[in-house]
């Protein structure tokens, strides 16, 4: 379980980083908690690791009007400790607590999780559910991609090999927004089976994210619409939003069912949080 050889650089400017990433086979390393696993298993390759640890532009959380920009160096633990204020921050705190464990949360990053695009990633669910977007940069220029378009499938994203995801932008949630996260999982050592994130805005509309219910994290549009119509959002999540794949420990019918249950439960959780 040793990785094949690669070179390693730590650029100090974004321009240097993007130049390095233009090298064939170059990969970005931030926390490396997923990349180093896959390199160790020799499931993926890298000729060069470009470490973004010294890029100031990727650090920290920036408040903009109506949105919050979370840099690619912001770790799970930073969010868990409350790097973001308000209801969005509360949702990030609650979600971060489900990501792996403290020794992984101290290295791994939210943006890194989006780029790894594991189907059961809580961050992918949250970012998709909130309708966030990912900022990408390369020597060819910059672009912003909606998370729903960024996440293609298991371990597949819209990022080109030479593109660096510099930040994720999440919408600020207005005061009075109620939030919650629930999961089904078999033990604390594995991935979630299904996770659901919710933000219920003061107007009663909801932003719902699902992980593990489809090839990638998704926004549960049908469940949101059902809720708006006064119908059962769980049924909509199970039958319309969910698009699970067969798993030895979770048949498709079961995963659909769980997606529905968790959507109902996460909405109930937001009620509890309010009470």
């Amino acid at each position: 379980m040793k990785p094949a050889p690669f070179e390693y650089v730590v650029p100090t400017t974004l321009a240097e980083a993007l130049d390095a990433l233009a090298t064939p086979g170059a990969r970005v390393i931030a926390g490396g908690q997923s990349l180093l696993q896959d390199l160790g298993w020799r499931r993926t390759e890298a000729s060069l690791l470009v470490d973004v640890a010294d890029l100031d532009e990727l650090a920290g959380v920036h408040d903009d009007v109506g949105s919050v920009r979370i840099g690619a160096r912001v770790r799970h633990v930073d969010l868990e400790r409350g790097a973001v204020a308000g209801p969005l921050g509360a949702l990030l705190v609650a979600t971060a607590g489900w990501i792996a464990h403290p020794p992984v949360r101290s290295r791994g990053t939210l943006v890194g999780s989006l780029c790894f695009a594991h189907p059961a990633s809580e961050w992918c669910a949250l970012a998709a559910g909130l309708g966030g977007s990912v900022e990408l940069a390369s020597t060819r220029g910059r672009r912003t991609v909606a998370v729903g378009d960024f996440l293609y499938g298991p371990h597949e994203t819209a990022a080109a090999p030479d593109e660096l995801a510099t930040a994720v932008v999440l919408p600020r949630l207005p005061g009075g927004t109620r939030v919650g996260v629930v999961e089904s999982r078999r033990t604390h050592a594995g991935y979630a089976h299904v996770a659901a994130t919710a933000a219920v805005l003061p107007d009663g509309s909801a932003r719902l994210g699902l992980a593990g219910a489809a090839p990638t994290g998704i926004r549960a549009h049908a469940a949101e619409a059902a809720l708006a119509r006064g119908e059962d959002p769980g049924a909509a999540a199970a039958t319309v939003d969910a698009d699970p794949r067969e798993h030895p420990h979770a048949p498709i019918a079961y995963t659909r069912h769980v997606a529905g249950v968790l959507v109902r439960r996460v909405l109930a959780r937001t009620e509890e949080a309010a009470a």
Partner: protein
Amino acid sequence: MTALDVDLHVNGTEHRVTVEPRRALAVVLREDLGLTGTHLGCEHGVCGTCTVLVDGEPVRSCLVLAVQVRGRAIRTVEGLEAADGTPDPLQTAFSEHHALQCGFCTPGFLVLLRGALDEDPTVVEDDDRLDALLASNLCRCTGYEGIRAAARAVGTQRAREQ
């Protein structure tokens, strides 16, 4: 591939090593520095036997490259004892509460707990928080009861001393 010179600050001592970028921190600690108390049990970040502190925070040293922690303060199980050889209260408590059998997971649990206690000494006082923390690492021998008991005992001892 190009080997790189890396300065590592481990348990208060500075080391310069020349390593291939692909070498995990755990491997460099074990092979280059001879600090074999940091174990490798799974090499994919799950078991936690390789847990060390980097700037006081617990990390999986199997999922960190040595080149990534140049200049950072690293603490391993070998650095838990005080300079005069006084054991960390956790080390004593682990023995007293039979929190180890084969001992392979022990350094990882000790370092995990030391990092957590340094950040927030009350973490061991609440069952849910303690279990959430201990769930970071795997033990196949003890059923965790002794580890829980040792962690709680250190918390109680601290509370008594205050």
